[in-house]
């Protein structure tokens, strides 16, 4: 089981993810935007996965991933973008920032859990 950082400005989405991931035994750390996401990433050195939205106030998810890649290059924590955005340009930017997978909302719960298992087990 892993400690997972969930970065999303929607409390509804964070609560939904927390419920399904905790049911599988994962521990959840929450952040409502990229700025708080960076803070939580620094604070928790034992993260096994980051799930991150793209469009958020204060700092968007792709910028946060770029900051993780440049400022925390010593920590290789798998990152999934979990977003309604599906443009090729954004996926390319995510890939360049070291994002491992792109999950487009609305997500299928079973598929997400399977992907989470793949990188955390």
């Amino acid at each position: 089981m892993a400690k997972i950082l969930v970065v999303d400005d929607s409390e509804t989405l964070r609560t939904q993810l927390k419920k399904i991931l905790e049911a599988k035994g994962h521990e959840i750390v929450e952040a409502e935007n990229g700025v708080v996401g960076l803070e939580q990433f620094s604070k928790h050195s034992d993260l096994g996965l980051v799930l991150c939205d793209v469009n958020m106030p204060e700092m968007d998810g792709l910028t946060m991933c770029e900051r993780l890649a440049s400022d925390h290059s010593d920590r290789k924590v798998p990152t999934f973008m979990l977003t309604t955005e599906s443009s090729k340009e954004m996926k390319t930017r995510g890939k360049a920032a070291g994002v491992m997978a792109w999950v487009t909302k609305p997500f299928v719960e079973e598929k997400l859990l399977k992907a989470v298992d793949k990188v955390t087990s």
Partner: protein
Amino acid sequence: MAFIFSTSTYLVGYNLGDEINSHLQSIVKPKGLRYHAVDTEEDLAKALGKICYLAGILHTGDLDEFKAQSSQLDHAFYSLTPSQNTKASLEGLTLEILTKLSSPDLTEIMSLSASEIALSFFPGAEMTFKDIGQRTPQEDDFDAQFAVRCETESSPYKGRCELFVNTDKFNAAHPDTLSSDIEKVKDALREYTNQFIGLVNRSFEASDISTKIGIPSAYTMEDFAAFPKGTLYIPYLGISDSQGIFQIYMGYVHPEKGPAIDLTNIEYHSGDDEIDFF
């Protein structure tokens, strides 16, 4: 010359006379448009230089030379015949212009997207959305408690989505689904709108049209009424569910007075995708 708002969409009248100008002024307002009247080609050129979003140019008289110099606007000119100068005829013509701009194929994608998201977002709340036609939220007396607004782009078109929800009806039909906390309801509706636009955009992306979504803002209707409306996008297309809980409107405009968005080859793309591992 009257002040032109760079954020509004205009129907321009050339050489139409005071009576027709007055009719058009009253016809376009509820449609979310502004009307601008000019009497000379010089003023028409100045107005078109300032207007960002253009619905059309209604005119009488010979504009052939002007049109030849503005070939990129060929799609926008409508010549008014003498029999079309009644208010009823002008209303019909305005609707014809808006219908031509409105890409009715969008309503099918909107309806399927809203139905799919409702099912995944509000478990057990199966809803079927249907087209309610080319209209603007201002034309409806829909009884809503909350509204959400979000900008979107389908390059190069700029779009807007507005969602209205009657939460009293929702709670009666689907008890214990929405929180009683207003901020949590707003958060859920923001995310619903976000996912709805995301699914609409997936159909665009599948046709190689690049998209981008803004951050939705949710309001109680009291706050929404007091909030600046900003850009008036047209033409709005509306959908609603059969229980009258949701009304959702979308519209797109070309940022450089180009033709209407063409959706004829765009098909609905479901949200049931595989996860994309890089």
